[in-house]
């Protein structure tokens, strides 16, 4: 494994913009003139900061009401969790499970996954880089789908404006929730999965020496 030659070890870097592989000492991509880096600069730092920001917004997103319905039947405002509970009580188990997994489980699992990846890239855990890379791709792929909640509320707010009878207004949680989704996507984007492999190579290089 130690003999695997990487582009980085050859001083070659892939351009972030156009993907052209060029020697990193040229500084700028000869094709698109963007800066060349061997790895995404400050990748872990950025990921960590976006992760913390996302976690911060996760609390208002779940504590504050997502959407309030006012009308003849009175006012009711539901948080995500109370909405899930209401659906569950009414017997709409499928809807409850979908909302629960899309709006509560996925964001938190994403954040946990990213945290794990960051820790792995810093060398705190020793998991197979192949699995970690797969985890990373799943995380990145799933991220955009958690915006479903936001879209549902946006559509309802537009459609249900019946004045006295019934009116749907977005709650303060919707912005926080959108922020969580966006920030986790940023975090996933700013994470450089190559760091996982770098760490693996380093460990592989160190381990034969120690043993």
């Amino acid at each position, binding site marked *: 494994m130690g003999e695997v030659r990487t582009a980085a070890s050859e001083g070659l870097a892939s351009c972030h913009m156009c993907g052209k592989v060029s020697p990193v000492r040229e500084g700028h991509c000869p094709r698109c003139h963007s800066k060349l880096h*061997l790895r995404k600069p400050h990748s872990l730092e950025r990921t960590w900061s976006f992760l913390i920001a996302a976690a911060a917004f996760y609390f208002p997103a779940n504590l504050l009401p997502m959407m309030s319905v006012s009308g003849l039947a009175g006012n009711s405002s539901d948080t995500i969790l109370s909405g899930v509970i209401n659906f569950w009580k009414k017997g709409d188990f499928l809807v409850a499970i979908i909302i629960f997994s899309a709006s509560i489980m996925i964001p938190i699992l994403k954040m946990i996954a990213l945290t794990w990846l960051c820790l792995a890239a810093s060398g705190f855990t020793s998991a197979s880089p192949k699995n970690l890379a797969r985890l990373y791709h799943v995380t990145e792929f799933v991220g955009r789908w958690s915006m479903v909640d936001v879209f549902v509320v946006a559509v309802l707010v537009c459609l249900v404006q019946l004045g006295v009878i019934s009116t749907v207004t977005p709650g303060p949680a919707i912005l926080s929730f959108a922020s969580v989704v966006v920030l986790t996507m940023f975090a996933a984007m700013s994470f450089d999965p190559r760091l996982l492999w770098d760490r693996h190579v380093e460990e592989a290089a160190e381990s034969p020496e120690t043993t």
Partner: protein
Amino acid sequence: MTEGEEEESTQEPRAVVRRRRRWSSVWVVPAVALVLAGWLVWKHYHDKGPLAYVRFSTAESIEAGKTEVRCRSVRVGIVEKIELANDLQSVVAEVRIDPDSEGLLRRESRFWVVKPRVSASTISGLGTLITGAYIELEPGDGPPPVHHFDGLEEPPVTSANVPGLRLTLVAEDAGSLTAGSPIYYRGFEVGRVERRTLDIENRRIRFDVFIDDNYADLVREGTCFWNTSGIDVTAGADGFKLSTPSFQAMLSGGASFAVPKGGVPGRPINDGRVFGLFPDEDAAKKSIFVPDHKCLLFFDQSVRGLTVGAPVEFRGIPLGRVVEISFEHSPNGDSRVPVVVEIDSDTLTKAVEDIDNGKDVLAECVRRGLRATLSTGSLLTGALYIDLDFVPDAPPAELTKSGEYDVIPTLSSGLAQLENKVNAILAKIEKLPLEETLNKFGTAADEIAITVKEVRSAIDEAEAALVEAKKLLARDETQNITAELEATLKEVRGSVESLGPNGAVQGDLSRTLDELRAALRAFKTLSDSIEEKPNSLLFGRESSGNSEPKAKRK
């Protein structure tokens, strides 16, 4: 990385050493996010406003999440949750008050449910038939931070912040006076009963009364309140009295107040003053006496018709009233009826002006002949009152004491006097020598019998006289009278015949008729000529052609 550095160092002799920034600018993002998220959460809970727990006996028409809390019809909160209280005897509504209205939750704040209510006196809350019930919050004056309240079952009649006079009336009997009943002054509504409660300790009814600020000055220290509920038929010492209040008061009860005639209005009063509520107007009027002197009267007659509360009058002026009729105050072995009265000695002093105030007025009055008598106030009802008056020929007496009371001497009077007089008459009748009289009547009857006999003989004599008269008629002279009568008739017939056709009168009459006929004929010729020549009257018979009118010659 080491390889890269080596390469850079080999190519460029001058190394550009850049100190790596310790903190990347990317850390601003989580910092901002933390602040923003924290602020959002804080704002949300801060904006929620305080919770108030209001206890009601029932959650009827209250709905969680729907029923609003309003203050003067402005929404200030909403019912979030309704739960049974721990003791299961009431419900507790959790009310979320808007943060701006936090100051409304004060010690004296009151909550009640506004829903349609229909009673005899008012119809309220009809609007809530459509919009649903809501909880009205009336802010109080107490210190602000209070979160547990007891809701009212009935809406308060007047809100606590309406300016006005708040009094308490105390009555023996509630009558039909209830919360919401109007208070009248001379038939004009000036206030309302806010609440009625039973004071168990004193066994009395307490009414909290509100008098509108505009009329608060009418209530003075000397004011009397009385119940005007329903139709009042009283049969007292002064006959029958029927008094009806307004229709509304008849249905929902009511009370009136006034300063009774002769009473002193006194100063205006402050909130919280307690007044007695008299059962009727009469009682209120009588209440102006300040009976300061209790006296005992012993009546040696029946006091049937005398009731507790009956007036004591001095020459027709009310002076006091009967307090008690009971043998408790009577000394042993005395069968006279003791009657305790209370009198206003001030009024008595005013009535008898020439007595020094220094002396005991009552004692002096009794010395001068003041006596109490039972008098009939109304013959119809037989109600009695006690009349105090100076009796000129009263047997001399002094004011005595019996126990704690002064004893005013009494005279029996009225019906009792009449009874005595009748008794006296009966006694006199009893004393009459009836037997003797009857004997005399007997002899008189005998005499009458004799007289009758004499009369009978007189009648016999008269009969004999009649027989003689008959005989007289049968005699010849009496018969001759008819013959004479016949002759007279003949003469009359003769004189009538002279008037007939052969009589002298007849001849004269025919002559006169002939003359009259000739005169008529002459008149006929005259009328004919006038008919032919109507102008012949003016121009004469012969004239013809151009005739000239013969005017009067001058």
